[in-house]
């Protein structure tokens, strides 16, 4: 059995770790690319959302490397994602791929059924204690990953050399993917901090030319937030424009809530969002629709300069959120921009819109003519 799984940003690092620590053979599909999307789009229903198309592309590319079993999480609605496992199974079957699809969810609410599926994946050599240990370690890694990511978000607008910052990020991801010990994970985070500190020292005292970076909160559909290919490098692009970003959902927050059913909070828990959303959207709407609204409120209250919502075309929960967001914008006087991505989204269009949005946010500050200092990386990220 060779297990594969769909990509979602850095999630592969965590999933790979999980299976490797259980000695299950795992195939990490090639990272999302134009080819992935083209392959997936060819098989997908036309109006399915972008994640489905990329997922299918991942499986096809993984099949070339010998994968024969797919692991995906499920759900019972009302977001479409809950049905994707079954949908993808049928699509792949009719396209002639001989895949076995294991959906990690309690089938018809039966926890025993879920246990059986986990047992099927983990094989007979692993005890439940080992499985739980592996889960804990993978979770720990996802928290560390999120911490690194948050540090990078803060570092991008502050460090002098953007190439170097990206290099730190890439190296950190590689290190985290390789290490199999708790100590190694901690070391990596420490190494990232060290590298940032070194780089920061090169910029001596904050000169007058630099203002405090703009802060933009990124909210929306989880796949598009977490996956830089899908969002066309939204965070990196904003970082290059001198903006510090924060996002509503981090991988471990999602894992903690969705997979561990709230037993683990994750880095930046998403639990508080429904409360924030209450005056605007008091009921959940599936997916992360309510969380999106809640995060917008939270970012607005924390004084962010702007908010960007991103979601794949025809995403149902986010459409509901998008039609509520104008009221948040009105109530807190914070500019909110909505970006919708699909397989035809072009880099240049995205870049233009981001630049225009950042210009728009910078204008009031220029007029006020305030010269705030930039602040330190560690005062902001990785807390």
């Amino acid at each position: 059995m060779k297990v594969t799984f769909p990509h979602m940003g850095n999630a592969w690092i965590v999933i790979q770790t999980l299976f490797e620590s259980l000695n299950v053979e795992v195939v990490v599909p090639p990272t999302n690319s134009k080819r992935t999307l083209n392959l997936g789009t060819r098989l997908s229903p036309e109006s399915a959302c972008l994640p489905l198309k990329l997922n299918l592309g991942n499986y096809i590319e993984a099949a070339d490397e010998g994968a024969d079993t797919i692991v995906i999480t499920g759900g019972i609605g009302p977001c479409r994602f809950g049905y994707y496992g079954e949908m993808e199974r049928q699509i792949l079957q009719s396209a002639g791929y001989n895949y076995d699809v294991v959906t990690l969810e309690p089938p018809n609410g039966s926890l025993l059924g879920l246990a059986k599926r986990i047992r099927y994946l983990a094989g007979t050599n692993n005890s439940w204690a080992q499985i739980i240990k592996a889960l804990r370690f993978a979770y720990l890694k996802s928290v560390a990953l999120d911490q690194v990511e948050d540090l990078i978000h803060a570092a991008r607008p502050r460090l002098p050399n953007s190439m170097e910052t990206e290099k730190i990020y890439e190296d950190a991801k590689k290190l985290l993917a390789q290490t199999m010990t708790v100590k190694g994970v901690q070391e990596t985070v420490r190494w990232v901090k060290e590298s940032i500190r070194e780089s920061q020292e090169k910029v001596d005292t904050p000169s007058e030319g630099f203002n405090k970076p703009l802060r933009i909160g990124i909210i929306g559909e989880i796949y598009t937030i977490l996956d830089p290919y899908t969002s066309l490098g939204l965070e990196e692009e904003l970082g290059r424009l001198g903006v510090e970003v924060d996002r509503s959902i981090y991988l471990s927050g999602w894992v903690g809530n969705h997979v561990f059913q709230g037993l683990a909070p994750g880095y930046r828990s998403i639990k508080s969002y429904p409360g924030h959303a209450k005056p605007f959207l008091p009921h959940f709407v599936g997916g992360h629709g309510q969380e999106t609204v809640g995060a917008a409120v939270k970012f607005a209250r924390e004084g962010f300069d702007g908010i960007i919502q991103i979601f794949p075309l025809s995403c149902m929960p986010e459409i509901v959120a998008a039609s509520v967001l104008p009221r948040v914008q009105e109530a807190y006087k914070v500019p909110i921009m909505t970006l919708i991505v699909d397989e035809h989204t072009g880099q240049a269009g995205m870049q233009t819109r981001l630049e225009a949005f950042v210009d728009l946010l910078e204008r009031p500050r220029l007029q006020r003519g305030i010269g705030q200092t930039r602040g330190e990386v560690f005062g902001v990220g990785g807390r």
Partner: protein
Amino acid sequence: MKIGFPRALFYFDYFPFWAGFFHRLNIEVVTSPATHRQIMEQGLKKASDETCLPLKLLAGHIQALKDVDAIFLPRMVSVEPDTYTCPKFLGIPESLFPAVPSGIPVLTVVLNWRKGKRQVLKDLQVFGRQLGKNKAEIRKAFTLGQEWQKRYQDSMGAGWDFEESIREIERAQKGLKDSASPPECGRGQGARTSTSAVSLKEQNTDRLRIALVGHSYLTQESYANLNLLGRLREKTEVQLVQHVSQEDVESHLLGLRKKLFWNHAKQIFGSGNKFVRDHEIDGIIYLSCFGCGTDSMVQELLAWKAREQHKPYMVVTLDEHSGEAGLVTRLEAFLDMVERRRVHEGYVSTYGERLDRDSNTL
């Protein structure tokens, strides 16, 4: 007190329940007029760009409600255990606030059958307090609502269409309670009376039988779907999702490895699957709208089934730009194809090539 009920989205299918509910509470319910050009245009202006046509229409209907004390926009989370409605239903009324004319309050209540009847009743009683009604009154109203809803649903087997059923309810509201006999008055364009339809069906056995599947708020919405149902009825015998009994729907859902978790999707797939297997049905038309999330999945599931069984199958996708000529052309072409297939199906050429050999592959 006069409550406005927009004639869109949950009006189709669930209006009888709410009509009965408010009737028992002595609250007058006013529905907006049937969709016309202006309603659609108003809706397009006020609704969010990304949302789907039915919600845009709902936004238009909300604005068309004049002279009412409040507008009623229930949040229909679920109408049966283990399912949801579409996420966009869950976002009502908040997502439609921009469309509500200023000064008119919005009444809303959560209807969630996932948590059982007790919870539904409790939510309705909380809602009743807003209306100044006590618990006993709400319970009675709830019972009547359910009775009306059941009567409407049972009536589907008799081949009524939605508007006719509603007229019956409206008559009942006025006190004329004898509903044993089916309504006799036909309605305008594209309609037929149920009694004559039954006899027509018996006479015309060689007419094509086409199943029109899709959300009730699309198939019954004759303005938005460019009177597709009426056009079909002129030429063929039409079967709808609503004509399929609940047992048939359930039994045709059994083949799924994972249960569908949307109520409408279940109905559509279950009855669609029945139509696919039904030899009486000559072809299936799936009516969808642009950007419909549930249809994007269910349409594909049903298309596989249709392909398996070599059943003629066409998908019509609506949006606010749908052109009449395009639809008519496609419809005629589809019906011609189905007709031709019926005539030539058994034809085997003497020199070894069958005329329609490849036409079954969709």
